[in-house]
């Protein structure tokens, strides 16, 4: 089992006028930091976007789904494996899942809450009965319950967690045995600079207006702001591997895909109004054997726009990283960055130098990921 090993992901990303994560007034979420008002995107909002992206990249058996229709999902697999009739499979699946004592929902085949499960886990449970499904289906309820009593159904759900659960955790209020503590920690994204809330006043024209009628069909406002966000997440590799049953290869895959999904995803709030999807201008990964280090302190003093905010923000981040490294003397195992600043452009040379000084020469994102994987594997080998 790996010891202390954390992978910090630092992202600087500019979002144009948008309202990705709104509060009950419909305004973009905000927070005060360093005495200045900042744009904020909650960690939950960005985790959901990451998770959805994550699920599109994972092969089917590793996917995790959040559903209450656990019984029918299991029944489908029993039918697939054994060619049993569907109604018999439903009954068998129901009997299997009663071993979990999940609270039942409104419909008999539903659980009372959304359960985050992995397809591989359901395959395991279905496999428990596949050899004897036809015999079991012929039994009456009482005998069936007795036959199934000793099958390790709960074990199948409490081990071999799907990658999504291993990363993001799971909470089942009345069965703590099924709970999984998340291996990633995601901070709320904050703007590196002070933001003002802006309002877009709009009128909608009624295309069928009679000639005598004047004025708009409706009027309204949408609040928005534009922000260069600092996004931070850290992956506790030891816990990730532990959640995946000690399978470090699977944990390496999960880490790699998480970094990919965290970097590429954007919450979709008000997307059709603002088309705000952007790519990060900087993704930096830092592998540490001591502790995770959040570099948000780089922006406690809000960045002031001179020739744009982006370059000043990443310089500030690079300086904070370098300063923390020299002040505390704890040198990370590995640091690498992918960024979009080119030294050829006027004014960008200083930015590129600061980034290179801190994280090394920019590498394409694919190389960043493969380098990270190689580094973590090497650390694991060294740790034994």
């Amino acid at each position: 089992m790996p010891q202390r090993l954390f992978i910090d992901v630092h992202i600087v990303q500019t979002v144009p006028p948008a309202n990705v994560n709104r509060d009950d007034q419909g305004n973009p979420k905000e927070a005060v930091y360093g005495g200045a008002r900042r744009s904020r995107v909650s960690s939950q909002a960005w985790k959901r976007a990451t998770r959805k992206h994550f699920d599109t990249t994972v092969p089917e058996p590793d996917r995790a789904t959040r559903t209450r229709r656990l019984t029918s999902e299991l029944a489908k697999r029993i039918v697939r494996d054994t060619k049993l009739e569907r109604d018999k499979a439903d009954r068998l699946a129901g009997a299997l899942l009663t071993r979990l004592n999940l609270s039942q929902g409104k419909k008999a085949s539903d659980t009372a809450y959304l359960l985050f499960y992995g397809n591989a886990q359901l395959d395991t449970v279905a496999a428990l009965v596949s050899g004897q499904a036809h015999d079991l289906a012929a039994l009456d309820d009482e005998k069936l319950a007795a036959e199934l009593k000793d099958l390790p159904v709960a074990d199948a759900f409490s081990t071999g967690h799907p990658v999504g659960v291993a990363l993001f955790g799971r909470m089942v209020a009345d069965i703590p045995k099924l709970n999984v503590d998340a291996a990633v920690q995601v901070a709320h994204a904050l703007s590196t600079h002070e933001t003002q809330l802006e309002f877009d006043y709009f009128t909608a024209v009624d295309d069928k207006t009679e000639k005598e009628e004047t004025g708009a069909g409706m009027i309204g406002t949408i609040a928005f702001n534009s922000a260069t966000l600092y996004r931070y997440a850290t992956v506790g590799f030891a816990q990730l591997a532990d959640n995946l049953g000690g399978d470090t290869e699977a944990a390496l895959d999960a880490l790699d895909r998480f970094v990919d999904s965290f970097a590429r995803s954007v919450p979709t709030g008000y997307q059709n109004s603002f088309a705000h999807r952007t790519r990060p201008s900087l993704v930096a990964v830092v592998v540490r054997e001591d502790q995770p280090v959040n570099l948000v302190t780089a922006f406690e003093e809000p960045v002031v726009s001179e020739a744009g905010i982006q370059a000043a923000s990443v310089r500030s981040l690079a300086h904070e990283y370098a300063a923390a490294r020299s002040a505390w003397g704890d040198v990370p195992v590995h640091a690498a960055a992918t960024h979009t600043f080119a030294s050829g452009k006027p004014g960008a040379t200083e930015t590129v130098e600061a980034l290179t000084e801190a994280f090394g020469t920019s590498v394409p994102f694919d190389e960043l990921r493969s380098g990270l994987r190689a580094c973590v594997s090497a650390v694991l080998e060294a740790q034994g």
Partner: protein
Amino acid sequence: MTATGPTTVLLLRLAGPLQAWGDRSAFNRRETRPEPTKSGIVGLLAAAAGRPRHAAIDDLAGLGLGIRVDQAGSLLRDYHTVSDYRGRPLLAAAVNAKGTQRLTGPAKYTHITQRFYLQDAVFLAAIEGPAHFITTLENAVRHPAFPLALGRRSCVPAQPLVLGQRTGPLEEVLRAEPWHVTDAVRKRWGRRNGNAAHVDLPLTLDDPAGDDTREDLPLSFAPTSRAYTSRRVRHTYAAAPTGLTPHPDQPPSTGGHDPFALLGW
């Protein structure tokens, strides 16, 4: 403290954009206290030491705790919605005789929760205990087993978290420590207060004879048997050094009660 032998104090600086220190909230309204709770600090230490949720925590809960409010911050209300992605009505909190949850009636589709955070706050936590144990804990916080959080998972601490060990009584340690705020806040405060050399900061200290209680002493973090009890605390103020040099011609400070000083206004 019932420990024998020399005691030491571990100083932590709890700062970050957001913190959340709930002591009694559950379900839809997750509140925060205006200062860190003992359960939050014990939880942080337990996470650092890599203790699973069901592990015993009496040794950690038995440590003395003092909190100094260096920058009070302000309250942030975060609005949260939960809905069923298939567009179905949500379930009610009540259950019927069979123990199953009913659907909400009239049908409710979006569930709203409120999460409260402290934004832009800085606290000093002084943790007092037997010297060797404190050293172990300091090492654990510097090399935590699980990522640490300021009361809630998404509240990532800003560095530096550990300020190191100090000797002497807990209260003295908190009084001697310089004011941990940014230069901008210090300067702004100085302009309004004639660059006074000291600032009054609120202290909350564990004290069996204290005149106030807190319901935040954890007995167990095990998911099936979470339990808390109360502890007695005492409130006072510490005149912490600001590091500013008062101008000889100006009055040394506002000389009186200035509740806004803490906010850096």
